């Protein structure tokens, strides 16, 4: 009898424990405050690279300067992890107070109503006239400002000085024709072995700074019309531009195909790539690898000179309380102050966000100075709600099909344009 009673109560206790574990923790504070007066805001970003220490230091400085008043609780995570977690977190009411995402994500987030307009932040100590116009334009949605600049830069051409010297070259190319010519001289292709030991110009097609868009546009092509109403991928000018690059990459082996950004970084880090287009965050890895490199504007093509504008911005959770909003505004102001941006530029090689920082103030890091001299930067698929889907479902597979010889640009690009048109509407 006693044994049965013990078994009965043990089973009951086990069931109760399980049910309790499934329940919500209703005692946790949900108002964003740890102490009575301190407002805690959560802050997600993806600065996992060599720029991470600078982000951590600036957040620490903010927390120290506002101790007892505001506290930023930061989570730095890989880009794909954040991308997967962000929407489910918002849906569950657990989204970060402030999140940093690429400018291309703004239409998607704003149209879903998970971030709020921050027009009033600009009347709260932030001077719009000193901030990057491209970033401000990219975070406009439906007539309102939905973001505050976190980092702004443009892609540039990295060139390996050692490999250039070995090939009898002394300076970065100044035109796309010259770039292809240099790339062929730098490429060490072993005919018959189907392997290349050294590539002249590494061109990633996914998970990287948009390089193909820049190459197409330089030679007169484009992906969508200026008014974003239709895709121009199937136009004759784009097909001709694609033919130019497919020929260089496939027939002259200047780049491997199907590369991701990490693959491209690895090749340049290993001293096996002569030229490579990337953003300022790559400098830390290249320095660590001991590569002797130069940074130059991406050369002008037969049509224009352009680069990819890289803009990440801070966005405020639509469900943020008034207290959290004030804390976020204070952080926005701190991040874009002259002092913070001077530190940011010197530590990371990013150009400063604010014109209040002069070139002489960041002279200690000439790479940051170089990155502030990019020409004709444009946002890749900027302002499109389905930008990410257009990129992953249409553009990347089409580029890969062209470079793997699954079809000629004239066959593949018009069909891809039709697919994009379906996603634009």
């Amino acid at each position, binding site marked *: 009898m006693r044994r*049965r009673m013990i*078994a*009965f109560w043990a*089973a*009951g206790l*086990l*069931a109760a*424990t*399980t*049910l309790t574990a*499934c329940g919500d923790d209703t005692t946790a504070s949900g108002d964003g405050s740890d102490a009575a007066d301190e407002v805690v805001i959560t802050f997600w970003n993806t600065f996992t690279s060599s720029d991470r220490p600078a982000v951590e230091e600036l957040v620490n400085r903010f927390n120290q300067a506002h101790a007892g008043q505001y506290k930023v609780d930061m989570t730095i995570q890989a880009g794909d992890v954040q*991308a*997967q977690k962000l*929407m*489910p977190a918002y*849906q569950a009411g657990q989204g970060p107070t402030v999140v940093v995402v690429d400018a291309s994500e703004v239409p998607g987030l704003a149209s*879903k*109503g*998970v971030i709020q307009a921050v027009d009033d932040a600009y009347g709260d100590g932030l001077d719009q006239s000193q901030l990057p116009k491209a970033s401000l334009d990219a975070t406009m949605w439906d007539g309102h400002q939905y973001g505050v600049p976190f980092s702004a830069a443009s892609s540039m051409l990295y060139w390996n000085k050692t490999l250039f010297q070995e090939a009898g070259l002394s300076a970065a190319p100044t035109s796309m024709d010259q770039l292809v010519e240099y790339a062929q001289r730098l490429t060490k292709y072993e005919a018959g*072995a*189907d*392997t290349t030991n050294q590539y002249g110009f590494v061109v990633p097609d*996914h998970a990287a700074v948009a390089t193909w868009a820049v190459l197409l546009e330089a030679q007169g092509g484009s992906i969508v019309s200026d008014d974003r109403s239709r895709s121009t991928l199937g136009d004759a000018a784009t097909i001709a531009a694609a033919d130019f690059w497919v020929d260089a990459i496939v027939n002259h082996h200047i780049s*491997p*195909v*199907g*590369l991701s950004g990490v*693959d491209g970084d*690895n*090749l340049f880090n*290993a001293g*096996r790539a002569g030229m490579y287009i990337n953003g300022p965050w790559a400098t830390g890895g290249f320095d660590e690898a001991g590569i002797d490199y130069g940074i130059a504007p991406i050369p002008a093509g037969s049509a224009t000179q352009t680069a990819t504008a890289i803009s990440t911005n801070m966005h405020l959770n639509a469900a943020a309380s008034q207290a959290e909003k004030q804390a976020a505004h204070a952080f926005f102001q701190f991040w874009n102050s002259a002092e913070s941006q001077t530190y940011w530029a010197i530590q990371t090689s990013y150009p400063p966000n604010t014109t209040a920082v002069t070139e002489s103030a960041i002279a200690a890091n000439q790479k940051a100075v170089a990155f502030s001299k990019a020409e004709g930067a444009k946002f890749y698929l900027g302002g499109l709600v389905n930008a*990410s*889907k257009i990129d*992953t479902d249409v553009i*990347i*597979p*089409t580029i*890969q*099909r062209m470079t*793997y010889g*699954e079809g000629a640009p004239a066959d593949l690009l018009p069909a891809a344009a039709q697919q994009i048109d379906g996603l634009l509407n």
Partner: protein
Amino acid sequence: MSRRRVRAAWLFLAPALTVLAVFVLYPIGVALADSFTNATPFGGRSWIGLDNYTRLVADQRFTNALSNTALYALVTVPLSVVGALGLAVLLNRRIPARGLFRAVMFFPYVVSLGIVSIGWAFMLDPNIGVVAAWLNDFGWSLGQGVRDPRFAMPAVMMVGVWRNVGFFMVMYLAGIQSIPREVNEAARLDGARGWKTFRHITLPLLSNTSMFVCVIAGIFAFQAFDQMYTMTNGGPFFRTETLVMLIFNTGIKDYQVGYASAMSWALVLIVLALSLAQTVFFNRREVRY
């Protein structure tokens, strides 16, 4: 049985049943309901009847993922099962370091497939990979490695087989060791040796194990995701995108929860049909002893 004992039994079962109901049965039911709606996490849901299912039939991406998954299953299931059986027969013999070999073969199953897939992707990389370098020494090129449309699917298949063969080998080892010794002895007295013993004694008496292994291998194959996600991300140009990967992309990345739920239920029905077919096939060949 007294009512008190029945009540105690239900109480003991309650924790597991609660977990099953909350985390398995409820989501399955919700997914079924969602599959008849246009549900998205942010746009509410409305009833659209069978539209998601009719859309599946015309969706080229779904057809492509289904054929990729079928190809993956057609190659990896026989290779895993036959390989596991061969290894089990080999490692059931008294050979030196038998325990070590068994552990080595089983090891891939207990480590994270996502992590080992990253390792495989590095090893197969034509620029920095050790396997690619070895093959290069023999004059064999891996092209662009897992980025190459010719090698992407074989690479993820190879990792799938490598991962599962040890697990199935353990199943077969248990099956072989449960065959009564007197049956083998009787066969030996009748003059059966080697292949004949295997063909007429071991293999028939392993029919129950084979059924279990084949059903599980089929389910594993239709659930393939990890190595595609980490090694190829479904590429190049969707060549390695499997059904589960497409469901993930549709539901988690594109937020088309209703459509992804319909895909999930299509997958459930396919796996159910295959498992039933395998069960019927093996039941007809079942040997009782």
